[in-house]
């Protein structure tokens, strides 16, 4: 009998594992039964699978609620402080929870599919059960030697591999003897927000939704003369487009609102890999729309293929993000958790399954299956990458073969002025876009494939003198950081064409349209789009190289107006027709808002301090503003003041007040600095927005400022702070797990957003010595240099030798050499001259610590160069005079609300389309058979 651990819910762990095993077993029975057409058994088995899955999810929630920290999953994602409202975030914070969430949705969709029976039901359910079989195997947590099959969500901490053999695991009273088990690590605070509650379930429902068209297409491949599967598949395709699209944009909204990426889309591999299946699903669903009712099919292969790869790309996405292969190219991928091989098997099995089904003849299918088995054996011998490469090459070959011979083709030529022709073109454009993004995202994967080829490639490269091959042989590809070069170069032209196609195709009729009539219908939308683009060019500072962007904005506006026009003129009053144009308007607005707000975002914070001449121009990033507590500085169209900061929970919040910018008057004789130069006002004037506008007419350059000018000079400003308008509180999250993380605060208007975040801020007081002195940094300064220390401006006025008469009073011996630096200190209330000394006695330097008590400053001259007139001085600052400061960034996003509005319309449009299709299909469907 196994020992009994005191206070441990050992039986619950057993129950949980039993449920997972049951879910796994039931899905296996379901697969076999549905394949054998034992539909009744299959249905029961699937229901059992669903119940077990739901029960194990409920059980994990119960463990969270009961704070059972002996379970690894609970311990990793919960602690005593975490509010229970984040229990959902905690649940899907780890991979195990992610798999369970995904399974949850598959089960919900599967139970819905089980309610209706058609000739395709058994095959669809077989595929769906197969997907579930693989997914539930991800949760088994069984080890075969080194090979790990699944991550067990009910794993007890004492059983975790990294705790194996540790002495405490053997103690029966471990739960009560170690305080460790009274609290968990807690969910990463970055995930403790409401976006994390709503984004993953939406995204995973979208992922799960791609499985249904996949299953229908796979079923359809078995009986290619019957296309009746397309009607239900179409509904699910549209459902997937709506949900997955919303899920992706929700992720963008999360990044924008709560994280400090400085935008909503960063072309991050993880973001990309959820976008790609959406693109192919859109393409596939539109082809379904064409072929569903068509007598002779058009692009039948593509219809099947796009639907199949949508799901395969979801799997690939899971593989990329969960296997750890992306490693450090993405900020939010998981680290390797030892299930890479299993994920790989999962992806490749379905890739193989789908591609073998594409072949029509039994011989070819059998041949490929044999090849797959043979390659598996080779892979097990250790040649994994080679086997996969051969497998993928063989699949490419058979896919081309299937495309050429295995699908029905119509010989009739489509009219160029038919809706289906342009829908087909649009679908291909989506595919190209998806392929390009996948190409960019897959660089770490390519490196894996290039690695075994390394020696051959470098040899060939040397022989043929090909630098490309030599380059590839190093298998060190990494994504470029210039997004314009890596993504926009290709995606912008594609988007222009897609938007144009979307605007045109809506007005075309199936089969053939009257060109002149369509042209007339489009005049209104075209003129409106030209008008809008003209206004945009006038309002925003577009550069000449941004022409493609302007064309894209025009094209997106055209898509919006054309579909909007259709909505009002054609679809008016017909509920069934509203869905698609509405979704198109939404998608157009998403692209329009995304392109405009991102390309025309204005970083209004500007770094104004620092010695510009010493900074590397190229490397100099002047977009971050350093602001001292209590200071008021100009910031774009505002003045910003750093009022104070306070801590609330795990957040340190910085209160920044924003003031209206009021005009500033300069009087004759006023002296200002600008860009390191001094100017004097010639006449009385109101400052313009830019100094350059005023410089010629109102200012005189002073190459050698006199004492008055030097003393009075202020930094030039374009205005003064007027009445207070609002306060923003960007914050820093104190995060022990991931390091402190800044979180933005954004002011929303209807037509723009002001997005601000802290780039650097002190969250703990700086280190001081026992007497409260801090700093102690040595600066090299020339005579005439100034430096800001806290509140005090320090200037080296001159250097002078100490005369013999002075020496006794300054505590110097006669033989000493003494140099005094005349240091002028100035703050808001006082101005004083101080003279720290540099003393050499018998050619030994005597350190002389000098304190300017009133200013809370201590200094010491370390070395002195008479020829250069420079000195190295160490300066300390007392904590009593310290001023807090932050480095912040502020960005204006114009018209970003267009994006969110578009997202809402798109979701509404797809929902309407599903609803009206469902109603229509129900009417035309024969009563239950």
């Amino acid at each position: 009998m196994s020992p009994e651990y005191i206070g441990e819910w050992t039986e619950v762990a057993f129950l949980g594992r039993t449920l997972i095993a049951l879910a796994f077993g039931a899905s296996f029975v379901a697969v076999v039964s549905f394949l054998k057409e034992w539909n009744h058994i299959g249905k029961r088995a699937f229901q059992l699978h669903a119940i077990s899955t739901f029960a194990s999810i409920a059980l994990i929630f119960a463990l969270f609620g009961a704070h059972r920290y002996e379970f690894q999953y609970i311990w990793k994602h919960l602690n005593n402080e975490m509010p229970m409202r984040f229990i959902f975030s905690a649940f899907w914070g780890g991979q195990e929870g992610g798999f369970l969430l995904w399974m949850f949705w598959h089960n919900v969709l599967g139970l819905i599919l089980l309610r209706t029976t058609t000739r395709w039901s058994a095959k669809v359910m077989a595929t769906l059960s197969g997907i579930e079989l693989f997914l539930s195997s991800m949760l088994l947590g069984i080890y075969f030697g080194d090979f790990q099959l699944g991550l067990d969500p009910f794993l007890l901490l004492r059983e975790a591999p990294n705790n194996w053999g540790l002495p405490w695991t053997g103690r029966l009273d471990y739960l009560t003897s170690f305080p460790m088990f009274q609290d968990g690590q807690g969910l990463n605070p970055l995930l403790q927000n409401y976006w994390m509650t709503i984004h993953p379930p939406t995204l995973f429902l979208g992922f799960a939704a791609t499985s249904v068209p996949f299953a229908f297409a796979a079923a359809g491949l078995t009986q290619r003369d019957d296309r009746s599967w397309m009607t239900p598949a179409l509904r699910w395709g549209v459902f997937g487009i709506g949900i997955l699209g919303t899920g992706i944009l929700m992720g963008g909204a999360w990044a924008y609102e709560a994280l400090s990426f400085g935008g909503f889309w960063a072309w991050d591999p993880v973001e990309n890999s959820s976008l790609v299946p959406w693109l192919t699903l859109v393409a596939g669903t539109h082809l379904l729309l064409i072929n569903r009712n068509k007598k002779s099919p058009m692009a039948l292969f593509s219809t099947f293929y796009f639907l199949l790869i949508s799901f395969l790309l979801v799997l690939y996405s899971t593989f990329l993000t969960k296997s750890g292969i992306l490693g450090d190219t993405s900020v939010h991928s998981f680290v390797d958790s030892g299930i890479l091989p299993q994920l790989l098997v999962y992806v490749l099995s379905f890739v193989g399954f789908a591609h073998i089904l594409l072949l029509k003849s039994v011989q070819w299918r059998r041949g490929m299956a044999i090849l797959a088995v043979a390659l598996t054996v080779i892979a097990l011998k250790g040649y994994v990458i080679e086997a996969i490469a051969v497998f993928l090459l063989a699949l490419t070959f058979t896919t081309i073969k299937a495309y050429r011979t295995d699908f029905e083709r119509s010989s009739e030529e489509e009219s160029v002025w038919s809706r289906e022709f342009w829908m087909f073109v649009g679908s291909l454009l989506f595919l190209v876009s998806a392929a390009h993004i996948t190409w960019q995202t897959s660089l770490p994967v390519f490196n894996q494939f290039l690695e075994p080829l390394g020696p051959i490639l470098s040899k060939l490269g040397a022989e043929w003198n090909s630098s490309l091959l030599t380059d590839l042989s190093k298998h060190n590809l990494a994504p470029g950081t210039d997004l314009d070069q890596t993504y926009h170069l290709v995606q912008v032209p594609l988007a222009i064409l897609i938007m144009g196609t979307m605007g045109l195709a809506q007005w075309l009729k199936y089969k053939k349209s009257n060109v002149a009539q369509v042209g007339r219908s489009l005049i209104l939308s075209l003129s409106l789009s030209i008008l809008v683009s003209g206004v945009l060019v006038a309002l925003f500072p577009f550069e000449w190289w941004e022409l493609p962007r302007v064309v894209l904005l025009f094209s997106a506006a055209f898509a919006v107006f054309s579909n909007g026009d259709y909505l009002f003129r054609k679809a008016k009053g017909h509920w069934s027709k509203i869905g698609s144009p509405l979704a198109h308007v939404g998608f157009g607005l998403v692209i329009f808002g995304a392109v405009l707000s991102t390309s025309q975002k204005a970083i209004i914070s500007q770094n104004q301090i620092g010695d510009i001449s010493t900074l590397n121009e190229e490397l100099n990033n002047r977009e971050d503003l350093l602001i001292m507590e209590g200071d008021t500085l100009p910031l774009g169209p505002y003045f910003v003041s750093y009022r104070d900061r306070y801590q609330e929970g795990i957040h340190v919040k910085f209160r920044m007040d924003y003031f209206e910018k009021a005009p500033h008057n300069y009087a004759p004789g006023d002296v200002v600095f600008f860009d390191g130069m001094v100017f004097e006002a010639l006449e009385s004037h109101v400052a313009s927005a830019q100094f350059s506008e005023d410089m010629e007419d109102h200012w005189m350059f002073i190459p050698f400022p006199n004492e008055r000018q030097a003393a009075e000079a202020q930094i030039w400003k374009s205005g003064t702070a007027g009445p207070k308008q609002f306060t923003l509180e960007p914050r820093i999250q104190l995060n022990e797990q991931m390091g402190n993380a800044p979180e933005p605060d954004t002011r929303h208007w209807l037509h723009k957003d002001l997005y601000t975040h802290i780039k650097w801020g002190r969250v703990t007081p700086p280190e001081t010595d026992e007497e409260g002195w801090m700093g102690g940094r040595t600066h090299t300064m020339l005579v005439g240099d100034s430096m800001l220390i806290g509140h005090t401006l320090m200037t080296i006025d001159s250097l002078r030798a100490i005369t013999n008469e002075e020496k006794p009073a300054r505590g110097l011996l006669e033989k000493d050499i003494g140099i005094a630096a005349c240091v002028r200190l100035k703050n808001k209330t006082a101005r004083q001259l101080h003279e720290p000394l540099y003393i050499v006695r018998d050619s030994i330097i005597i350190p002389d610590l000098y304190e300017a008590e009133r200013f809370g400053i201590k200094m010491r001259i370390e070395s002195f160069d008479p020829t250069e007139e420079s000195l190295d001085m160490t300066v300390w600052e007392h904590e009593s005079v310290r001023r807090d400061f932050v480095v912040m960034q502020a960005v204006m996003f114009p018209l970003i609300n267009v994006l969110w509005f578009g997202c809402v319309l798109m979701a509404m449009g797809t929902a309407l389309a599903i609803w009206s299709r469902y109603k229509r299909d129900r009417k035309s469907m024969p009563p239950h058979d």
Partner: protein
Amino acid sequence: MKRTHIISLLLIGALIGSFIATFISTSRSVNFAEAAATPGEECKVSGTLNRDYPVVYEPEVDPTKTTFHMVDVAGETQRVVLNQPKPTGLENSESIDLYGSAVDGEFHATEMLMKCPSKYNENNHVLLSEDTQGES
């Protein structure tokens, strides 16, 4: 040849073109020595923070300049100038990826990604140490 085929071929051509066009802009992960061989060219260098040298960030002097030393995978240490405020957690980072280029024996980075130790591993240490205390 049908029109749809012509369009398909055109788009496949565009696709291959796009692969090539953007392939040129991909950077390479290299070490410091290789980066120095192609000064000014963008590349990626991975390594770990060299804790023998201080991380210098003086916001009062320049709020957007952080300097530190990194050891690359080949074991070479170089001074790194990053044109960003000091990223939080740099001192505790496990590994660093720099995107930038080599300039005069230094590496100038415009972008940086870090992997920080996950608390999970840290807590295992806690478990270990508490365990030994429990035993002794």
